[in-house]
């Protein structure tokens, strides 16, 4: 998944990620557990996440 600059780091994606694959620290980033399922896209309030 690709996270763009509009990400504010609210952590909503991390909580809804079924694979515990998102680390948030000021901004979201995916770790190696990410399988590109795309769940996070719908839960992002600022449309900052897109499929690669």
């Amino acid at each position, binding site marked *: 998944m690709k996270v763009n600059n509009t990400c*504010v*780091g609210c*952590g909503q994606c*991390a909580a809804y990620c079924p694979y515990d694959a998102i680390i*948030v620290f*000021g*901004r979201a980033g995916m770790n190696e557990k990410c399988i590109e399922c795309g769940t996070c896209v719908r839960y992002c*309030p600022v449309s900052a996440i897109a499929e690669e």
Partner: protein
Amino acid sequence: MKAVIIGAGLGGLLSGAKLSKAGYEVEIFERLPFIGGRFANLDYRGFKLSTGALHMIPHGSRGPLAQMLREVGAGVTIVDSKPAAVIKMNDDTEIAFKDFQKQLSLTKNIKLGTILLYSRKFKPKNDLSFKDWILKYFDDDFLLKLADSFCGWALSLRAKDVPAQEMLEIIDNMYLYKGSGIPKGGCGAVTGALADVIKSNGGKIHTGECVDKIIIDKEKACGVSASERTIDADIIISDIGHLETVRMYDCRDEAYSGRINKARPSKGIKICLSSDEPLIGHSGVFFTPYAERINGINEVTNADPNLAPPGKHLVMSHQTVISDDLNQEINLGLLDLKKLFSGKKYEVLLVQSYSDGWPVNRASSGSDIGNWTPVQNLYVVGDGAKGKGGIEVEGVALGVMNVMKEIGIIV
């Protein structure tokens, strides 16, 4: 009569509950897959974290939000905090917030009482900041630090960025409604109960559905287009802030457009901690005026243990963002927590930050534009359109009350 509401945040849901109870046919559109906006629960590793606001109602069971929840019949239990708030002093002692004046010399204490009494009656001019208002009368480091801690906690601003006038309105409300409380079940219990009220009154809430356009005919809002259909409405309430709302129609009122562009969203950082032993020991606000960045902390599990897995505590800190370096701001916050809870064991669950498009408040206190729009039958509620002197969700409730009065629904 039909009401369409854009956004199922607290303001949208409060409006929906009120209108559906008054007999309106209510339809709410929420673009996210869940309701509650920045006043919802976020399940995380067995803890009930929150999407935005802390699990807290600033004026507890006596405030405007609690009053509205009772009026619409939303089943929410608010546990009033005792003590309401505590201040962590520089020498590590703790004092009750209500006794803060005792930290001042007798002369300053009497002076503060007189000035507060005078200034509450004759509010200062709007261009004077709360910090400058304090400096005008006092040279006192503790008062300035406490003001920053309070403003940071309650408004996610520094005292220099809050108009003294707005702060004195807040002080009025603190005298009127008193201290804070925690909703049992967290933020999500409040927004969930409101959704139940709306549904039981026959209202509909669509999640994952966007409103694309507000339809206007002869300067009157008359419907919306959403998910490729048109919905006629007598009243449209937007809970997405003035700026986002104005993008949904062709606004010709330049004065209004200018005004809404001046609203500044406020930034904040929330750090969620888990611990086996209580770090604070009560559910009141723990103000930290001597910390580098953290403004205050709340241990919500003292009011509702179910917000954490059995045997765990959930602690949430809040700080306003001072520099442009967000990572540095977070690290300073984490360092504060280390110092404040030195010798105690805890784990950082999640660091959440808010700004710009998903801020603490869409319009920071003092830059609120109110609920009015240049279009008839179109109103804005939520944290971009709070009522005077309303802290966070209390301001949202006051704003909704204003709109209901305007529409002619008895509050």
